């Protein structure tokens, strides 16, 4: 039984990845789940210099999901290189570095610093809704998407995944723009903008009022977008948004995703990644599927 998949020449032992920002760099989760079982770990967004992040409350629970407005708090790329790459390399899993910035130059600075480092893939986050500059502001305008991707791609010495925002009318427009700009792969979806109000306090729950929604409730929207994107581009697509188990993962693979990522489900069950791998394998056994790639994109 083959569960290996290929993302731009990087072979993942299985199609299960972690979604950026939900798994740190794996250190905390390594106490609770076996990182060797995960196809790839996508780390928390890394910026050129440390970012403080947004004031609390940063988290709110909503029906079947959650809102966050963390705002890409991170200790910066130098800290990441010194601490997190050596940690993750102890495990048999691929390393995907999620890159964030407030400007094109800042994205380029991170990617330059990462040149020659022992990592496998880069993921360009142009879709974070929780920062005022950069992030989603870059990711919702196809012209801008193409420009950012083209500029950053010039500096990259690893395949570049571009992470798309679902907060657009036509996801295929930004997807095509990213590929035109030179994206080697696409990942989607980032969070959907959302809000929650505490009626007793008559105030928004999040300090920033609006945050990014994720979790099981967003899955149908994410799946639809992954399906649409897979139909219109030729690069590998990494599907995410509300995936909790093997059955969810298989839906995305059948819609055309080469790999999938587990985000919020890690909070619901710290062992969600390993359980998803198991669920996929059980399905393959049950239906006598010898290669996971056989069922990819089987939905017309």
């Amino acid at each position, binding site marked *: 039984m083959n569960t290996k998949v290929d993302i731009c020449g990087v072979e993942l032992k299985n199609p299960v990845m972690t979604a950026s*920002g939900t798994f740190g760099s794996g250190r*905390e989760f390594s*106490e609770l789940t076996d990182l060797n079982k995960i196809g790839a770990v996508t780390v928390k967004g890394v910026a050129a210099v440390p970012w403080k992040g947004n004031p609390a409350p940063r*988290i709110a629970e909503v029906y*079947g999901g959650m809102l966050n407005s963390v705002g890409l708090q991170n200790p910066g790329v130098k800290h990441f290189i010194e601490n997190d790459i050596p940690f993750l390399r102890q495990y048999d899993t691929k390393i995907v570095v999620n890159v964030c910035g407030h400007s094109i130059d800042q994205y380029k600075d991170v990617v330059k610093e990462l040149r020659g480092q022992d990592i496998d893939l880069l993921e360009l986050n142009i879709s974070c809704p929780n920062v005022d500059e950069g992030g989603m502001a870059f990711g919702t305008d196809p012209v801008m998407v193409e420009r950012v991707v083209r500029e950053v791609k010039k500096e990259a010495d690893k395949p570049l995944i571009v992470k798309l925002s679902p907060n657009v009318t036509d996801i295929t427009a930004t997807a095509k723009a990213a590929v035109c700009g030179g994206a080697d792969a696409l990942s989607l979806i980032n969070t959907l903008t959302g809000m929650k109000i505490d009626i007793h306090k008559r105030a928004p729950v999040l300090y920033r009022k609006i945050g990014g929604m994720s979790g099981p409730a967003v899955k149908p929207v994410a799946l639809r977008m992954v399906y649409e994107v897979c139909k219109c581009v030729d690069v590998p697509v990494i599907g995410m948004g509300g995936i909790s188990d093997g059955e969810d993962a298989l839906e995305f693979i059948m819609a055309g995703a080469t790999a999938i990522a587990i985000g*919020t489900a890690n909070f619901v069950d710290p062992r969600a990644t390993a359980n998803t791998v198991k669920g996929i394998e059980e399905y393959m056994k049950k239906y006598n599927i010898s290669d996971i790639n056989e069922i990819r994109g089987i939905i017309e």
Partner: protein
Amino acid sequence: MKHIERARVISNRYIGDNICDLVMECSGIARESRAGQFVEVYPDNGKNILARPISICEINKIQGTVRLVFQIVGKGTELFSALEPGDTVRVLGPCGNGYDLVDDVEKTVLLVGGGIGIPPLLEACRELNCSKTAVLGYRSDPFLADGFADAGAKVYITTDDGSAGFKGNVVDLLKAEDIKADVIYSCGPRIMLKFLSQWAVEQGIDCYVSMEERMACGIGACVGCAIPITDGKDWTYKKVCKDGPVFDCREVVWQ
């Protein structure tokens, strides 16, 4: 090392208006817990996806049980209030740093708790082997106070409405009774912790406070629970779930 366990409920009863006292067997967690740490309890009902952080009120390493005392404030705690003996519930823990308790019989320790912040101080009280005083503040009806007396503490009670003990807040009482100590361990509403910290700094007493913030992962991976922490010069956001919940009161940015 943290564990995820399916804890078995031993008992669950009300000890006050909307306050539940839940004892559950989860031997892995019990074995490794210490005072001031908390567990993440999962609602597991499909719509409430995030775990609820609840402090460990008492640890019994021999029986492999932990005791949680919580107030019903919403969907998750309401669900936990309905748990019956024999039911199971998914729990992750122990989480957080806990209190670094002094281990010196010569010291005098002050435990200051407010409302639903009182439970984690009970385990601290039980573990301390020195002279200890507990100052417990309630809005109205006291709960858990006997436990502190049983664990050998001198107990003072304050209530906002004066229905029991001293009428006023815990800091008023500390001043009125001119209570002294070498170190303070505390947990309670932010406003109480703020005034207590001011008093402790004035008195030159080391003071450790347990903070709260909304959490997603509970283990330090998502940076959802960050609060500003200062080294006296600059500040950064630190994680309540991993760097805390217990902080030196001088590190907390109170405004």
